[in-house]
């Protein structure tokens, strides 16, 4: 498959057809997982380990007047109590916009004088037992003067609203625009409008935030934590005022992350306690603490106006998005950028004017969550497409087909779509798979169908100049060792890399070992987020494997007396057309004899570009994954309950490296999207979360939803290794709009606010009844 490679490397030698890529082998970590022997972050123990605890403020907006730690420090078993004064450099820095105009706002590691959200860390405790830490936490006495707060993003925009930060409440305003929008609206046959709202959502990974830290040889502060991003080690060094080579972060295999372990969670607190006590410390957040204080998905308010011709052709869109950033910046600037860049969805929009603002409130911070701003806007643009179809009396499919992007089209950022766009095929197949319509199961119940297409970037915003490295060595016995700084969220990130290396070097999977996520022992790969890991590390692994093979090819050719391009790497050996073979162990030895190393460090750099925030034009993301979901629902008009009867999900993944895992990603993503559509919500009233119990958070169980029928489309074209596209985030995008559209089809009423609870359905039905005069 050398023709699909993104980098010129070896000659045609090797792998004419895929042997390993495209199959679904179980990897070693999965065996450990079913046995219960995989050591997650909280499972790690160290001799003499202390237990760390964060003491949090329980008011949303206040000035701290005094913190008294004396009684807490006197609790037997307590080894350290730290407050802001003990932090060498008390800042957590995020420049999520990459210097494109966000407010400069500092986030303290531990609060100094101000509290900006309920749950903000104020002090840290390390104790010999978890109970002692718990008891001491109760005895930390913080005195506050409560201040007025602002708890809603739109209220925070109003003149005279209480300021969350002195610098202002608007973290950033993005404008993206092209074409003459006003002229397009003036010439339009039809304009449809809608205001859509999404809610605050909990990642609810099953593994709460956790880690263990210790001081290692030569004084290196070492943390083994559940994190998507080991590169935070550099931030930790700055915080501790240590050189960067004195802080090491190791990522354990995670019990889910979904973006929630992309920012630091336990790391700064652990690092401080380890540095202060010089002893191993463990910190594990309880579920309630996790729900209270971890970052959430941004609630969005999205105002859409779409102008079109009578045949359904879109002329222009105006979109205004307000995202609730919570109390601190984290990655909000980038999330809102993605929302703005993707606001018009997979549709040709000749003229567009999009504004997206990230706004501070006195609530827990919002940040990265699977879909990253681009998923929230799906409800907006896909509700608009249905509205447009209804307004024009055209089929919903037709309106979309008239406008779907094609390769070569220009999107609102001014960029050209460079790879295949198979969104039409995903729509056709998702709808086809719904099969025959179901009849309602009882009077008073109505069945309807809906679908939604989406477009989700994979890879980082490209002005960040992304890169990933991989260090690969064939050992003397012919086994392969891969070292790379990726982190594994549970999506099989490490396993996919093994498959890619196996494909190129012909090392059987059971002879490959991979060491991941360690800032001091693995070359950095950038974190696992933004659906970038297959794109980045996959390409890095592919390129490193090709380069290593290229280096060893002449050696093998010489030993086997065959032309290099005729050799095949497979089954643990290299074979020549005449039947001669050389095992990989022999190849390594032959290389050694000729001073040719069988170890190689490769680096892969993504394409780069720049974005001009003033013109609202420029480069945004490397590429996109397209898809369509479709559903049949039954709505009970008495109770407002929505039952999902059938659900299909089609995505173009370019090429499926491991089809079973791709299917699993799509099913799991669609389920998260459905939970978001139907019930998940973290209500915060006046800055106080209404429930931090798992029981109060309604995510789907095995009883609640039908199977998701997955359709994998392989256009063969993507910018990942071997033509793959990222599939981590895309499948959670279309679900909410799919269900909203199906409900509208069933009962003739459009819901604009998530989640689509029975109460909201009933309210909307009542409103519609009141608005319609009774039939004569």
């Amino acid at each position: 498959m050398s023709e699909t490679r993104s980098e010129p490397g070896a000659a045609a030698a090797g792998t004419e057809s895929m042997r390993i890529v495209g199959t679904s082998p179980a990897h070693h970590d999965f065996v450990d997982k079913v046995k219960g022997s995989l050591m997650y972050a909280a499972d790690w123990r160290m001799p003499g380990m202390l237990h760390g605890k964060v003491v949090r403020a329980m008011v949303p907006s206040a000035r701290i007047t005094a913190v008294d730690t004396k009684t807490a420090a006197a609790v037997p078993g307590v080894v350290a109590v730290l407050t802001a004064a003990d932090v060498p450099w008390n800042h957590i820095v995020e420049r999520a916009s990459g210097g494109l105009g966000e407010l400069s706002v500092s986030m303290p590691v531990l609060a100094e004088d101000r509290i900006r959200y309920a749950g903000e860390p104020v002090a840290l405790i390390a104790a010999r037992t978890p109970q002692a830490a718990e008891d001491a936490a109760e005895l930390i006495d913080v005195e506050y003067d409560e201040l007025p707060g602002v708890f809603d993003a739109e209220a925070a925009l109003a003149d005279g609203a209480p300021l969350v930060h002195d610098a202002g409440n608007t973290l950033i305003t993005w404008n993206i625009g092209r074409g003459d929008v006003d002229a397009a609206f003036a010439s339009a046959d039809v304009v449809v409008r809608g205001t859509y709202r999404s809610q605050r959502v909990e990642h609810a990974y099953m593994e709460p935030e956790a880690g263990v830290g210790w001081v290692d040889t030569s004084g290196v502060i070492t943390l083994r934590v559940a994190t998507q991003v080991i590169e935070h080690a550099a931030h930790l060094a700055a915080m501790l005022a240590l050189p960067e080579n004195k802080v090491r972060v190791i990522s354990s295999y995670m019990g889910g992350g979904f973006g929630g372990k992309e920012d630091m969670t336990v790391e700064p607190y652990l690092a401080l306690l380890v540095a202060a006590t010089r002893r191993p410390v463990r910190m594990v957040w309880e579920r309630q603490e996790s729900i209270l204080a971890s970052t959430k998905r941004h609630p969005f308010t999205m105002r859409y106006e779409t102008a079109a011709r009578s045949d359904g052709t879109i002329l222009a869109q105006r979109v205004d998005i307000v995202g609730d950033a919570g109390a601190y910046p984290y990655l909000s600037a980038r999330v809102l950028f993605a929302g703005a860049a993707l606001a018009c969805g997979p549709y040709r929009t000749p003229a567009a004017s999009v504004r997206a603002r990230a706004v501070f409130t006195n609530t827990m911070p919002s940040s990265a969550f699977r879909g990253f701003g681009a998923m929230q806007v799906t409800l907006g643009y896909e509700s608009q497409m249905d509205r447009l179809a209804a307004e024009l009396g055209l089929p919903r499919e037709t309106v979309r087909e008239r406008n779907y992007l094609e390769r070569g089209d220009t999107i609102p950022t001014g960029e050209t779509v460079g790879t295949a766009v198979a969104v039409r095929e995903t729509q056709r197949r998702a709808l086809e798979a719904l099969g025959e319509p179901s009849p309602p199961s009882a009077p008073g119940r109505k069945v309807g169908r809906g679908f939604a297409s989406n477009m989700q970037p994979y890879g980082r915003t490209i002005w960040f100049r992304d890169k990933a490295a991989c260090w690969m060595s064939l050992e003397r016995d012919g086994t392969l060792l891969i070292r790379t700084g990726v982190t594994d969220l549970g999506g099989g990130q490490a396993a996919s890399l093994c498959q890619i290396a196996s494909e190129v070097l012909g090392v059987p999977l059971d002879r490959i070992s991979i060491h991941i996520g360690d800032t001091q022992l693995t070359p950095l790969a950038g974190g696992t987020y933004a659906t970038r890991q297959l794109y980045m590390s996959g390409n890095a692994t592919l390129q490193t494997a090709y380069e290593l093979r290229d280096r060893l090819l002449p050696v093998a050719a010489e030993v086997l007396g065959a032309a290099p391009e005729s050799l095949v790497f497979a089954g643990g050996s290299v074979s020549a057309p005449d039947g001669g073979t050389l095992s990989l162990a022999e190849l390594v030895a032959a290389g050694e004899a000729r001073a040719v190393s069988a170890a190689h460090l490769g680096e892969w750099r993504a394409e780069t570009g720049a974005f001009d925030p003033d013109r609202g034009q420029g480069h945004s993301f490397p590429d996109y994954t397209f898809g369509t979901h479709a559903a049949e629902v039954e709505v009970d008009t008495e109770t407002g309950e929505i039952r999902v009867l059938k659900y299909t999900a089609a995505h173009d993944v370019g090429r499926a490296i491991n089809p079973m895992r791709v299917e699993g990603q799509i099913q799991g993503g669609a389920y998260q999207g459905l939970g978001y559509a139907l019930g998940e919500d973290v209500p915060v009233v006046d800055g106080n979360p209404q429930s931090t119990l798992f029981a109060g958070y309604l995510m789907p169980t095995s009883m609640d939803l039908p199977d998701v029928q997955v359709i994998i489309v392989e256009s063969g074209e993507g910018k990942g290794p071997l033509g793959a596209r990222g599939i981590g985030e895309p499948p959670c995008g279309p679900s909410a709009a799919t269900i909203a559209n199906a409900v509208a089809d069933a009962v003739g009423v459009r819901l604009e606010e998530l989640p689509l609870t029975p109460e909201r359905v009933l309210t909307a039905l009542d409103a519609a009844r009141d608005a319609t005069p009774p039939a004569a």
Partner: protein
Amino acid sequence: MRVELTVNGEPQVADDVWEGESLLYVLRERLGLPGAKNACEQGECGSCTVYLDGTVVCACLVAAGQAEGAEVVTVEGLADGDALDPVQRAFLDAGAVQCGFCTPGLVVAVHDLLARTPDPAEADVREALAGNLCRCTGYEHILAAVRLAAERGGEGRS
């Protein structure tokens, strides 16, 4: 207090157990068996599912004292060395594992379900597993694993 119990066939003693300590804590923190996971400590997720005297329970809801003299089997007790239990094998083969944090609890729950009902109907499986949350998979591959294990029936360890 001291708690004596049998875990995965081995007699075990836990000392200095404090008032209100859970069986989950004893297993994970005192006996070095971190297979059962702590994901909520509220009886809401099933990640901590173990057998207590032959019945599956949420170990986070069982007081350590209640386990005095009991026979406990955890996920670590299901495989025989490298030979996986058929349920574990089915989870692998059906792709029912992603992050794996829910897996130990689910493996024990499914093991129990199939021991009681070797050929369960789909609706019964869904109901039996409704107390085990999984945030990654959408459950479908887990249900497939149950079917696979049921089909393979008495094939034994692999």
